[in-house]
């Protein structure tokens, strides 16, 4: 059996291959877990004992971190991750996660509002750090775009709210939070739309646009229309089942989006040639930026 050569084109953006489902799991679970902690803090004044949701939030964050620990090349040196707080959002994510676990543990053990609010804030912090991790990856145009971080935060808190309202099946008092979910879903939809428009405007690898185009319709309908409709309807009508479905749709759609964001849509920068050189007495030629939706001038 003959094997054929590797890809013929070396200039165009290609899908990143260094982060696989394990890294995606961190963004999916970490975002949802962090969002859940924040949403739980918001719901804590209801007087319902939501510590099990805090445990769930911590477990999700922990699962995400475990997944990424399994991905890194040198897991035994994992503590080196704390060495660059000055500039690295990955270090900051690790610090926030440490704080999050401390606060979360305290909240579970002590059931103190301060600890719950601190855990919730840490959850937001974690989601924000994850957004900034992507924002600083200059090698992936889909990530380095400013609205990508906003979208990661928006989807994290939306998923958190989604998980919270799913708990309305157990604690019907949470049903009104369907409105919160709907508001967050609207926000996420706005950011998603603006993000994609903006990507088209500034130019982005064609593969990135294709990947997003492919999920747009289900993402908008399942991830937004359903949560908004069912969330508001469920909250107004007091139907826990409706808001739980709304929450599930928001969570699943958010997870699917992040899986695509980290995987299929994560095309590298590729190379651009601003000018073709002059050869001898010949004139210089035009350049090229293969694989991009728009050849942005350098």
């Amino acid at each position: 059996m003959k094997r054929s050569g590797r890809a013929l084109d070396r200039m165009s953006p290609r899908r990143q291959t260094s982060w696989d489902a394990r890294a995606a799991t961190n963004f999916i679970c970490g975002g949802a877990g962090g969002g859940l902690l924040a949403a739980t803090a918001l719901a804590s004044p209801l007087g319902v004992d939501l510590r099990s949701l805090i445990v769930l939030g911590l477990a999700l964050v922990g699962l995400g971190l475990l997944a990424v620990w399994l991905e890194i090349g040198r897991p035994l040196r994992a503590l080196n991750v704390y060495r660059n707080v000055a500039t690295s959002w990955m270090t900051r994510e690790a610090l926030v996660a440490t704080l999050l676990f401390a606060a979360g543990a305290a909240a579970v053990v002590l059931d103190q509002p301060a600890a719950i609010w601190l855990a919730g804030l840490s959850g937001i912090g974690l989601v924000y750090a994850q957004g900034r991790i992507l924002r600083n990856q200059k090698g992936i145009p889909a990530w380095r775009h400013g609205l990508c971080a906003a979208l990661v935060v928006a989807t994290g808190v939306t998923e958190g709210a989604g998980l919270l309202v799913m708990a309305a099946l157990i604690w019907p008092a949470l049903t009104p939070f369907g409105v919160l979910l709907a508001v967050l879903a609207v926000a996420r939809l706005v950011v998603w739309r603006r993000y994609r428009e903006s990507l088209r405007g500034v130019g982005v690898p064609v593969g990135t646009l294709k990947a997003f185009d492919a999920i747009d319709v289900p993402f908008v309908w399942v991830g937004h229309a359903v949560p908004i409709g069912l969330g508001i309807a469920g909250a107004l009508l007091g139907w826990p089942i409706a808001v739980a479905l709304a929450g599930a749709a928001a969570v699943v759609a958010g997870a699917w989006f992040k899986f695509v964001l980290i995987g299929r849509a994560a095309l590298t920068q590729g190379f651009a040639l601003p000018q073709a050189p002059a050869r001898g007495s010949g004139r210089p030629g035009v350049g090229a930026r293969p694989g991009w939706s728009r050849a942005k001038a350098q």
Partner: protein
Amino acid sequence: MTADEPVRRVPTFCYNCVSGPDFLTVKVENGIATEIEPNFAAETVHPGRGRPCVKAYGLVQKTYNPNRVRTPMKRTNPKKGRDEDPGFTPISWDEALDTIAERLKAVRTGGLIDQAGLPRLAASFGHGGTPANYMGTFPAFLAAWGPVDFSFGSGQGVKCTHSEHLYGEFWHRAFTVSADTPNTRYVIACGANVEVTGGPTAVIRHADARIRGYKRVQVEPSLTITAACSAEWVPIRPKTDPAFLFALINVLIHEHGLAALDQPFLRDRTASAYLVGPNGLYLRDRATGKPLVWDETRRAAVAFDTARAVPAVAGRFRVATAVTMDADRVRVNHAGVEGTTAFQALSDHIARYTPEWAAAICDVPAETIRRIAGEYLEAASIGATIDIDGHTMPLRPVAVTLGKSVNNGWGAYECCWARTVLAMLVGALENPGGILGTTVRLNRPHDNRHLSVKPGDDGFMVQHFNPTSRERWEATPTTRNLHRTLVPIVGRNGGWSQALGPTQLAWMFQEERPADWPMPEPTHPDVWFVYRSNPAISFWDTRRLAESIARFPFMVAFAYTVDETNYMADLLLPEATDLESTQLIRMGATKYMEHFWDCHGVVLRQQAVEPQGEARDFTWIATELARRTGLLSAYVEQLNRGVAGVAPLKGEGYDVRLDPAEVPEPERIWDAICRAATFTLSDGRDTHGLDWFRQHGFYKVPVSRRSWYLTPTLEEQGLRYELPYQERLMRIGRELRNRLHEQNMHWWDEQLAEYAALPDWHDVPGRWEQALIAAGARTEDFPFWLLTTKSMQYHSGGNASIALMDEVSENLRGHTGVIIHVDTATTLGIGDGDPVEVRSHIGATYGRAALVKGVRPDTLVIVGQFDHWATPYIKDIERASLNSIAPMTLALTDATGSGADIVRVAVRRMERPAA
């Protein structure tokens, strides 16, 4: 520096292609070769600045490749064929060498020539003589042996720049023709791919020229690397280059006129003024037989060498008395005959080949052709001079260079002629800035082409054609490629003449012969040596060729790995490879390609590391073969004559001869060769042995740049270039026709048409279409041209099994695939990277589509020569090859015995079918 040091840097060279030697050092750590680096000590000696090209960096992998043949092996399966596992089994060197010696002794007993008059020993070596730089003293063994048949080519003739070799050497002692790149300003390159094949020397010289602002116009169907590095790319229709070049001549002569050309050069250094009679033959002086010219001072026809004559370059003149000399010395007396100067004949002949005419054939706009001709003429700066080492010489910085498939196969004679005429018209032939010959192989001595220049007939250089006279023509071939019988111009100067015969005829006629074949049927050689040569991949119709190879009775292959040719071998012998063995070779002065240096000398390839397994130094193998075959003293005598390289071992003032009665150790042999070389190079000032070379790597003495140019040598001897009119070739062609017809042979008639005094355009690409029809196929079923081109990573390296080359070559666009124009591919529904089948009327080859814009929409290109099925590593990689589907036919063989890499094909999206 000693062998015990933990880290050593060992100077040596790479000669994996004809553009060597390139200098390098091997870093050896604790006895293991780890890195290849340039040899910076050679930075000012080697025109490539002491740097080897990418291929050399594969030599470490080559050394330790686990797929190497590490012990002698014998075949255990008597059946041979692609589907027969040879069952190679390790044996000892003693058994291997004794087996060969027994065979060879039996051959000697029965006579060196067989019943068909052919040598019973044959040998095939790979690309362009490069194996000679790795085979140690094996040439001395072959010389001691006697007649050897080198007919079975592995690509020479069809894969080399064949017509350029033959006609180049005929016209200006130019086995290879190069631009004088360090001085040139304008180059028209018809397919010459020097950035790939010219080695570091060509690469740096052309890069320097680009910065200097020279202009190179690349005329080629695809945007090759050299085209990419040119100022302008002209995507010409394949195989129509003669029309393009004819039109350039037309513009120079008919639009710019004689007054704009280099008239002194035409008058004094060429045969432009020779008078041609109405029968197309030179008008000659009746008494002396010398060609006549029209002396403008005497206003009369006089012999060309008449003192103080001022010959007219153009015009027609009434000549009172003359004689013409036709084939077979048929003399015809003439009186009151009109004589036309050769230049005038050229002018008349070329008048019909206008740019407008050529545009329709070449698919190049007439205005482009006209502009290029004008730029060429302007850049020629006729009248300008340059100081070369204290001598004022003409500066004519323009060149036309030709690449493979342009300068071989049908149409190549026309191209070579037109290119040389273009140089002639502006005085750029063998003058600074113009075109140069860079070595001789069909003339001697090989290391100094100037010494081959001696007065011959009609005021031209002496030539050593194979005789075509009734008395001396070789009616019974003495080689299987019939080079002496069929190709007068290839000459009879030993192995090179033979190896440049029509090698595909040797393969074809083993299988079948024309009906009118009165000669003895060619036989298989009793013993066949093969080294660094894989014709089952590198020739054409390779599947059938492999079957042909399987019918050879006894093949001994010096084998690096098992490959598609030695799969049929009876014995495999592992020779110590590049970094494991020792050899001293010549460097510098002028060599192939762009190698004209400021010095000449010798360079050592030395053993940097211990050979792997049981691999042995080739010199040891050659010596043992000689000893066991009973040829030891003859072998040593050949060594003493200097056959293994550089200089005789005895000369005036030195004597380092070896004792013919003793078995010399390789070290002793090379030590003597080192000493003889340095003594002769230095005129006795220096004598350095092997140890000195191991440390210093090379030895050089300066040469004058004036030696780059042949014209001063012709001037000194009062000789002329045999241009533009080819009266001699025409006569020889007629004689050859007479001889063949006397034997009732007509199968070479088509080829005889090439012997024209002034070549005409004929439908060159149409020959391939006609061949298709003759094979029973329809031209519309094969609508594309398939071409091939070389890559520096693989060219002539015999390195298809080197993983590093595979890895780095993948960075090049289209290297691993089938190059197709993006619009063509879109029409056919083929996407980038899609599996495709490229099919000719004899078979199919498979690869991945590489979509580009830089190729003509009617042309496909496959880089390199692949489609391996036995060579480890590369056999597992899908790479298409033109060779698998290019037919081998007489109809596509030109008069020199050459063909070209071009096939009519169809292409479609398709996976390779399961075997």
